[in-house]
């Protein structure tokens, strides 16, 4: 019994640290999602032009790739996460305005939002209850993501609607894999920085939402 107690005592600091990272990640993720919703609403009220999406996404990506890693271990990192997620939310405004103007638009947006939430919560619950280690997915997911980016690059010029639908479907699969991978990394101590963990999970949620909007938008107006 003494041996069990000493093992538990040895494990507890890392378990507490992991739980702290997980709790902080979910807390920051909730706040950033609310903030994105707020900036999206502002963008819709301001009736921003469609190019806002492109500018916001490029701006957010540049900040996420080149600025955030330098400040990830300082309190400024939290402010940068809000800047990135606020920008992405603001970029969503024109897209949401466009979908809302469709005959079935309100239903498409609501289903996409609810669907994204259900996918994220379901996959997170799956990892948290099974506690499986999905670190083996890293290379596979990154290769898949690069291939999707190449396909999206080709489709900018080819403009094939079926390919666009296929890309959206594959993006949802890959982002679902990233939810499993990222959550597993947090609970197994592979990610100890909640700022980076939050931005990773936020990007998966953002991409799933956009892709679901596209799929439901195309399938919902096919009559």
């Amino acid at each position, binding site marked *: 019994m003494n041996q069990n107690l000493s093992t538990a005592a040895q494990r507890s600091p890392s378990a507490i640290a992991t739980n702290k990272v997980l709790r902080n990640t979910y807390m920051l993720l909730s706040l950033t999602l609310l903030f994105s919703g707020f900036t999206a609403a502002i963008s819709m009220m301001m009736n921003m032009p469609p190019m806002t999406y492109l500018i916001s996404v490029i701006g957010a990506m540049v900040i996420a790739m080149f600025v955030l890693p330098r400040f990830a271990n300082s309190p400024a990192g939290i402010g940068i996460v809000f800047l990135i997620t606020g920008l992405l939310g603001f970029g969503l405004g024109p897209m949401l305005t466009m979908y809302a103007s469709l005959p079935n638009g309100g239903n498409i947006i609501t289903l996409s939002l609810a669907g994204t939430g*259900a996918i994220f919560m379901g996959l997170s619950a799956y990892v948290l209850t099974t506690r499986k280690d999905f670190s083996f*997915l890293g290379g596979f997911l990154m*290769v898949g993501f690069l291939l999707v980016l190449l396909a999206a690059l080709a489709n900018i010029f080819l403009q094939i609607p079926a390919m666009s639908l296929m890309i959206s479907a594959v993006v*949802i699969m890959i982002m679902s894999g990233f939810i499993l991978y990222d959550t597993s990394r947090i609970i197994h101590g592979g990610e100890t920085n909640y700022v980076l963990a939050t931005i990773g999970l936020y990007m998966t949620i953002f991409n799933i939402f956009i892709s679901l909007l596209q799929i439901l938008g195309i399938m919902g107006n096919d009559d």
Partner: protein
Amino acid sequence: MEWMQIISALALVMFIVVLFPATRNMIKNSPKGSSSDWMSFMIPIAAVILFIVLLIKLV
């Protein structure tokens, strides 16, 4: 809106170039998954596919 296509393409190329070294690194350093590991990945992904089909039927 041709300039928007060009900017989108340039942004994607930049993104691919930045991600490429990280991808190569992850392929080298990722542990290999067993068949049961891959099965535990395929089950939730299949559930996601079924869920999307359900959403399409609802819309």
